[in-house]
């Protein structure tokens, strides 16, 4: 990448010395930091092009770097062009510029956070206060929405409860957990409600007002939590350095999150990402379908039209192929390990239902139950999924996956309903707990159906290890796909809609 390197150097030279008006004294080092920052963004999976990099440098020239919000807006606007990359950007930003953040001491952001923290632990203001006093002050700050005070107290709480030591190889979540457990945010919410009632802000027995009040307080507590998190991150960066911290905090983008190992927050992010994704996909597919609406030559019509040109077939006519919308049958394993994968896939397929002529679905563990009815009864997909999880009758003997038995029952009840227009999608890791595979049934299904696909949420490397027998089924499928994240799921769905 000699070309890029030359350009970067050129840019640094051009913008480096004395370029930034009103920035911090060492604009040159700021550019170094910016280079590291962009590098880290790329490492986190964000596509940052050369032009965007240069734009960011130019942008920084025009703004007050000391104004954190504007600085962040400037970098965001030039470097991040997808909204769902924003949270990844924010994490990296917070790590890289945490030392410039408004800290416990307010003004001097560049100060040695670590030394200052030691000082506080060695009997500073935080040391003398009792836990109750701290909680009381925090309560006051929360009631008054005093952000500066909240930040100051968050700093104290971290000094007091997190028990951070230099060089200790523990992740930020551990410290966060320790601090929050002591602060008891749940209890704090109740206390806030009590305080509000005393002050007469809340009319007793007005459920609406109470609800709004509680949401307001929860919002403030969420903010407090963020402040504590930021404080811990700041101290960790001071201890370990920017690069190391950025590496440990690197998180996959929503579309790359592994279904099987998603955390609670990641699940929520996935949940939010699904709907826009399906909408975009549907629009794209509709457009593509329209574009290739030229079919075979329609001989009859061409001859008919040639009459108006005196028998010369001047205007060839084409048949408009009727877009065949496949009929989909989804059969999903919803046993523990793959449950979230099944849920997302069902949600995705139903959000795309307009692209198919008909969607039916079954879920199984060792028993199998058709769940199409839940989706028909409610137009809220999330609610239907909820009902699938709670009401579907999927346990036959012991609640351990038995693909063989599930397939057997499926064949018995529904084989005759499978037509050459049907595509069957089987979902699961094919970990059959050493039961009989009954893979001849998949063969039989395949003979009647248009296509049979298998989606496996496990990494390809794990297939056919242990009790996984995905290849036994795979030989009778038209395709077996690894489907670990939204990106893979999207490309699969787009492939089957196109036939």
């Amino acid at each position, binding site marked *: 990448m000699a070309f890029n390197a030359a350009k970067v150097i050129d840019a640094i030279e051009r913008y480096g010395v004395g370029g930034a008006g009103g920035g911090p004294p060492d604009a040159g080092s700021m550019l170094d930091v910016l280079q590291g920052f962009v590098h880290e963004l790329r490492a986190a999976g964000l*596509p940052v*092009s050369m*032009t*965007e990099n240069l*734009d960011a440098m*130019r*942008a920084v020239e*025009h*703004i*007050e770097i000391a*104004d954190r*919000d*504007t600085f*962040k*807006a*400037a970098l*965001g*606007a*030039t470097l*991040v*062009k997808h*909204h769902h990359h*924003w949270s990844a950007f924010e994490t990296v930003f917070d790590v890289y510029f945490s030392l410039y953040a408004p800290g416990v001491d307010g003004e001097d952001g560049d100060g040695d956070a670590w030394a200052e923290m030691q000082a506080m632990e060695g009997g500073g203001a935080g040391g003398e206060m009792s836990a109750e006093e701290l909680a009381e002050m925090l309560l006051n700050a929360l009631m008054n929405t005093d952000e500066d005070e909240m930040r100051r107290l968050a700093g104290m709480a971290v000094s007091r409860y997190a028990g951070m030591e230099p060089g200790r190889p523990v992740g930020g979540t551990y410290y966060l957990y320790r601090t929050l457990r002591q602060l008891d945010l*749940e209890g704090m*919410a*109740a206390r806030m*409600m009590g305080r509000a009632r005393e002050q007469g802000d809340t009319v007793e027995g007005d*459920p*609406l007002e*109470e*609800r*709004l009040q*509680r*949401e*307001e307080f*929860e*919002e403030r507590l969420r903010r407090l939590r963020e402040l504590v998190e930021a404080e811990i991150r700041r101290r960790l960066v001071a201890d370990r350095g920017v690069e190391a911290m950025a590496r440990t905090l690197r998180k996959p983008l929503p579309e790359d999150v592994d279904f099987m190992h998603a955390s609670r927050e990641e699940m929520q992010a996935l949940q939010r990402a699904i709907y*826009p994704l399906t*909408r*975009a996909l549907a*629009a*794209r597919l509709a*457009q593509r379908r329209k574009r290739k609406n030229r079919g075979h030559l329609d001989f009859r019509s061409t001859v008919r039209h040639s009459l108006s040109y005196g028998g010369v077939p001047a205007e060839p006519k084409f048949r408009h192929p009727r877009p065949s919308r496949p009929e989909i049958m989804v059969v999903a394993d919803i046993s523990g390990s793959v449950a979230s994968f099944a849920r997302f896939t069902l949600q995705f397929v139903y959000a795309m239902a307009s692209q198919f002529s008909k969607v039916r679905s079954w879920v199984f563990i060792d028993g199998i139950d058709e769940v199409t009815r839940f989706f028909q009864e409610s*137009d*809220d997909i*999330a609610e239907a999924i909820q009902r699938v999880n709670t009401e579907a009758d999927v346990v036959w003997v012991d609640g351990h996956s038995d693909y063989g038995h599930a397939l057997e029952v499926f064949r018995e009840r529904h084989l005759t309903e499978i037509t050459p227009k049907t595509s069957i999608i089987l979902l699961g890791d094919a970990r059959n707990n050493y039961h009989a595979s009954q893979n001849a049934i998949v063969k039989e299904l395949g003979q009647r159906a248009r296509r049979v696909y298998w989606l496996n949420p496990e990494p390809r490397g794990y297939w056919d290890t242990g009790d996984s027998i995905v290849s036994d089924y795979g030989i009778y499928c038209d395709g077996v796909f690894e489907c670990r994240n939204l990106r893979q799921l999207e490309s699969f769905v787009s492939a089957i809609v196109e036939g």
Partner: protein
Amino acid sequence: MAERFSSVEDVVDGLRKVDYLADANIAGVVYLADRLEKPVMVEGPAGVGKTELAKAIAEATGARLIRLQCYEGLDESKALYEWNYKKQLLRIQADREHENSWSDVEADIFSEPFLLTRPLLEAIRADEPIVLLIDEVDRVEIETEALLLEVLSDFQVSIPELGTIVGAQRPIVILTSNNTRELSEALKRRCLYLHVDYPDLEREKEIVRVRVPEIDEELAEQVARVVRSIRQLELKKAPSISETIDWARTLIYLGKTEIDPEVIQETLHVLLKYQSDITKARKELETTAAPGANPS
């Protein structure tokens, strides 16, 4: 070139004067757009004031707003320019006697008077200050997007018969997108990116007060709080800012000074446009979550 805004605060003040409340992010990006002379791509849910932003900038800077509304099937002749065929035909017919040579006629019919300018060309040729708004750019086909690239990066167009027309000035260009499809990287690279989301409580309250001046502070706050609460539910379509404003107006017309559950039930259809959403919100707002429980 004269700068339209001298600082980020200036952007905030300028926009506030025309009743648009910009947060730090919006103001920062608008300021940069002015300085870097780059277009801004604004994305976000429907009804958060993306189009409104362009209008406000135009008003605040005293510029004329030129708007190109995008739709499926938009092409060069609708976006850029078109030759006025009918007039050209008349010109040729008027020359029955052949007193002019063909080359004269040709030069004549491919000249300015026969050119129909469409929004993009109009923006490029404008002498007075303008703001160019390219609305809902995600509606055009990917092929048509390419048409915008030359305009956005160099602010010029090439017309085969006339040559390249270069813009006299660099106006502020705002593109909006509802994100119904992924826009091409080439387009995004040329723009600054701004994601506008639903505002926070304080800002929404301010917006309501600015847009519905007859409302008092207390009611405005209640409106903002209820709307925030409703947005936290899982809905097909969360209420937008414009719907919040409509709701506030409705309350004023109905002569309400206070929001109670009954009023909400009666007027919920102003905020929510799907029956399933309305039912859900009704059910949710009737039952209060148990103390300490997480509403999500």
